[in-house]
């Protein structure tokens, strides 16, 4: 029992937040249109059919995961290319910085006109928002590989691609996972922002929708759901690292 408490004390502490929050809302009489109490949020949650929640949740999750996978699939090759060619490094990096620091909301019309109104612009936005940390982390990791390991590869006269795949990339794994952890949360934000820009469903859409009709507790219920999927996805990344790349975790 005591070890149970000790092991789960973080979870328990986190659950303690809810009654505290409720108490603050009740005692300070916080209006629910500013900061609804947990009970108001739960009520709002159950006022919406579960199947509708599920529909919104799936729409967001689908875009977030797919966009995230696209981000991985493109940014790791980009990082590899940039490490292998100084010219491309110095040409691509500024472009990536510019792309990354362009608020997607500002180029939303362009994206919609080019990509239409289907999943494509939403995937593009999710990708654009989440790829950069992956490129930076992977590049840093690939470049931080110790001289000795590079010399080992050079001494074997292996193809440069194998130096990347069998030495630099494995060495970069802790860096890459650091990037993945950031990228997965950005993928979720990206999906939500994409829904602000163009969508008919999804949690982001539902948040905006609820807010614009003053159903703030309902918006917060969507936010809570969003938090849950963020935690799930984030912990999946941690789990993948622990399962398949245990050696890359310190301590």
């Amino acid at each position, binding site marked *: 029992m005591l070890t149970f408490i000790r092991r789960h004390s973080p979870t328990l502490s986190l659950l303690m937040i809810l009654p505290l929050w409720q108490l603050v809302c009740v005692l300070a009489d916080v*209006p*629910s*249109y*500013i900061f609804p109490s947990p009970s108001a949020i739960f009520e709002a949650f159950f006022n919406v059919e579960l199947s509708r929640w599920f529909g919104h949740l799936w729409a967001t999750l689908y875009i977030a995961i797919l966009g995230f996978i696209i981000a991985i699939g493109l940014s790791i090759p980009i990082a590899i290319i940039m490490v292998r060619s100084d010219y491309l490094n110095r040409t691509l990096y500024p472009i990536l910085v510019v792309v990354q620091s362009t608020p997607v*909301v500002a180029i*939303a*019309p362009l994206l*919609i*006109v080019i990509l*239409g*109104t289907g999943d494509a612009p939403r995937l593009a936005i999710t990708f654009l928002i989440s790829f950069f940390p992956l490129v930076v982390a992977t590049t840093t990791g690939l470049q931080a590989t110790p001289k000795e390991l590079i010399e080992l590869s050079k001494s074997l006269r292996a193809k440069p691609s194998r130096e990347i795949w069998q030495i630099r990339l494995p060495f970069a794994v802790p860096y890459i996972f650091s990037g993945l952890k950031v990228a997965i949360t950005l993928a979720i934000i990206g999906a939500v922002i994409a*829904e*602000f*820009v*163009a*969508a*008919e469903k999804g949690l982001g*859409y539902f948040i*905006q*929708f609820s*807010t*614009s*009709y*003053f*159903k*703030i507790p309902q918006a917060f219920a969507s936010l809570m759901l969003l938090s849950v999927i963020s935690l799930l996805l984030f912990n999946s990344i941690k789990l993948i690292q622990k399962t398949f790349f245990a050696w890359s975790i310190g301590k």
Partner: protein
Amino acid sequence: ADKVSFQLDWLPGGDKAPVYVGIEKGIFAKFDLDVSINQGRGSTEAITKLATGVSDVGIADISALMVAKATDDVPVSAIYSIFSQAPHAFFVVDDGEINSIADIKGKKVATSPFTSSNLYLPLVLEQSGYTEDDIQLVKADPGALGPMLATGNTDVLISWLTSKERLISQAKQAGKTLKVMPWHEVGLEQYATSVIASDRFLAERPDVAKRFVEAYAQAVEYTWAYPLESAQAINKIVPEVDVKVAQDTIISIHDLVYNSVSKASEVGAFDAEHLASTWKWTSAAQGIDENSFDPETALNRGFFTGLE
């Protein structure tokens, strides 16, 4: 002078002219008021800011206020009506293919994801005898709508009459002319943008509020009497605003302020029947029981008593 903070519901523009006129033309000064302006990001946000005391008085869509009061008794009341007709409208390329709302059936319609127009859309379509399932509705960022129409990406777009001039000039760049179909013409009878105030402000500084409404009413008169000067007044305070665009906007929305409804009573005053119609449409759109809320409770009629 008494300090009053004024909350806009959106970015500055021709449709928000009166408050700038009031400042720039010395109308507020005449009433011993020192008005400062907070820009806003939507009616809901403006109502929240008033409810929490960030600002004293401001403008917002009265249907948004009714919904807010019906769901969450917010301490905010409408005290003066500006638009006595809803600004929602269909915009189509004027190529003779779509001539009435009935022709929209089966067409591709683009709208912004979060405009209140979307709520009234089914009701408007219903007037022409069909439903949302009979059109192909796409939602996209407001900035993308004009380009979508111009590039033939969509047949119809839904926007507000306050954007009319801008949409028309954009279409002109693409060599196209637009046809505008306001929804109030097919029976969407309702009040829209109104001056609203926090109840605390009204209770604690009634005298200031009273003077403000009077000054604001004078500014409204001035605005539509002298669109150019009014547009210049905005430009003086917010140089980003184009005088020409603002002037065109002011002129183009004249009918939202001066129409049969406001002529029947007075600009600024709320007619009980039109108010009831407003709530009827809004409650129907929101799926709220019409009888669960008395639209009168969204008003405080004690501050605008008419221009002498």
